[in-house]
């Protein structure tokens, strides 16, 4: 039985996903609030997995919360913190509780997070995790043993269309598809001409592509990402546009820019949908969708 998200991907509609970030601690009110706000507006919600290697409530627990509150979760799963036994176990747990979408990621280094002396596991990489999901869907574990009850997942992965150099990334991208990725969320894209060139290449593969849209909240944030975030390039005219926003109006301008980009992607049918990352500002996702003319 395909997941609701998988059905949306296959329906040919313009798919919209967003993110909810688990809390630092067991107070889940904010996350539950975001789920309530977004569940009827987006096709699915990613639940991040110790994003940037900062220890938080687990993505599996967050995905359960999304499910219990009537949303469609995409379980983000990195290879940073679990070996292949733990990853397979968590996949079974997720599937048994109706979490049927998984985004397979390698994961950031622990050195980027708040537990810098921790052991980075990386027993598997993202393409191997995708292959493991496919194996388990076939009723076997990675060691070839039969599973009493298999798993059901729509599996996805990520790509960085603006990576430099791009060629090694594209080889990895193709391996992810070969390993069973049915959808791909991209790192943030801001330069639509560059993204169109990437899509000309990516269209040859049988995979759905959701463009990553990160909400800009200030010109400083754009400059910071250009300097510090791998594969993110905000063009100067967009930074200027953010900088020219009236005092107190930067968020509004950022929402407008996001809306404009999403509308263009949909209008020109550049890819299959968008993945909106309003980092820390999840409550404005409906405003972004409104600005894009989606609701």
């Amino acid at each position, binding site marked *: 039985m395909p997941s609701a998200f998988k059905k949306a991907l296959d329906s040919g509609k313009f798919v919209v996903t967003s993110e909810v970030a688990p809390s630092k601690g067991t107070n889940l009110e904010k996350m539950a609030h975001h789920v309530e706000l977004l569940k009827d507006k987006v096709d699915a919600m990613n639940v991040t997995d110790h994003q940037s290697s900062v220890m938080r409530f687990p993505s599996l627990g967050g995905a359960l919360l999304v499910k219990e509150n009537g949303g469609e979760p995409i379980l983000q799963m990195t290879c940073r913190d679990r070996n*292949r036994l733990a990853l397979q176990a968590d996949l079974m747990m997720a599937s048994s509780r109706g979490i049927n979408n998984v985004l397979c*990621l*390698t*994961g*950031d*280094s622990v*050195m*980027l997070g708040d537990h810098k002396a921790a052991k*980075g596991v*990386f*027993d*598997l*990489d*993202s*393409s*191997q995790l995708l*292959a*493991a999901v496919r194996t388990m869907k076939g009723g076997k574990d*990675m060691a070839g043993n039969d599973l009493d009850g298999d798993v059901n997942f729509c599996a996805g992965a*990520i790509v*960085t269309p603006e*990576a*430099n*150099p791009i*060629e*090694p*990334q594209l*080889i*990895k991208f*193709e*391996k992810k598809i*070969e*390993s069973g990725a049915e959808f791909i969320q991209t*790192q943030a894209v801001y330069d639509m001409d560059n993204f169109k060139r990437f899509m000309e290449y990516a269209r040859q593969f049988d995979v759905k592509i959701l463009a990553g849209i990160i909400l800009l909240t200030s010109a400083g944030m754009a400059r910071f990402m250009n300097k510090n975030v*791998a*594969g993110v390039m905000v063009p100067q005219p967009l930074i200027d546009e953010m900088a020219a926003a009236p005092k107190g109006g930067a968020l509004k301008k950022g929402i407008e820019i996001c809306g404009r980009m999403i509308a263009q992607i949909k209008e020109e049918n550049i890819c299959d949908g968008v993945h909106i990352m309003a980092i820390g500002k999840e409550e404005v996702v409906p405003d972004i969708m409104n600005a894009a003319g989606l609701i």
Partner: protein
Amino acid sequence: MIRSITRQKPMNEIEHLLDGMDRIFIIGCGTCTTMTRTGGAEQVAAMSEDLSSRGKVITGTTVVPVACDNLTADILSEYGSRMNQADALLVMSCAYGVQTIGTQLGQMVVPAQNTLFIGKENAAGQFNESCTQCGTCVIGETGGICPVTACHKGLVNGPCGGTNNGKCEIDSNKDCAWTLIYNRLNELGRLDVMRTYKKPRNHLGEPSPGKFNIPAD
């Protein structure tokens, strides 16, 4: 040439390790730590002075030629009485030497160094870690560059998303292994091997602790 690469522990850690032990004999190594200037004659003299100023009694110092050699105990035997007077031997070699001395002499040993990696000298004075002795060598498919070692995450199917301008996400001074591998294979016209999916690694090629005996004739 490969060398054991070390970095001296912070003095407060060394002091903590020597807590309650007042009489110390210091042993340097004439090979790797002399070359890396972490445990040669000069550093042994400096350590002796430093510990004296912290109230320790230094019963003697020496620099053995090769601390990890089985003959080290014989070489040290001339210092027998001065070593016996010491509560601990502070060893300024790598951990191979510390363990050799500890086993051979049966005295309390304290390392002055953290042993970082086995380094290959690629240019004068520049050492890189290029093999971690994983037991399941993969470099036949990577143009001779080891991603298990040279990639911070040990990835075997290509780069992660954190690579930026050919550098690693943890340190812009460290090269991204997969950019190096891509470039090497591209030059060799063998990108086909990079495109081939690699199965999950066997992490127990030689289960730790490794052991090897030369077969009898």
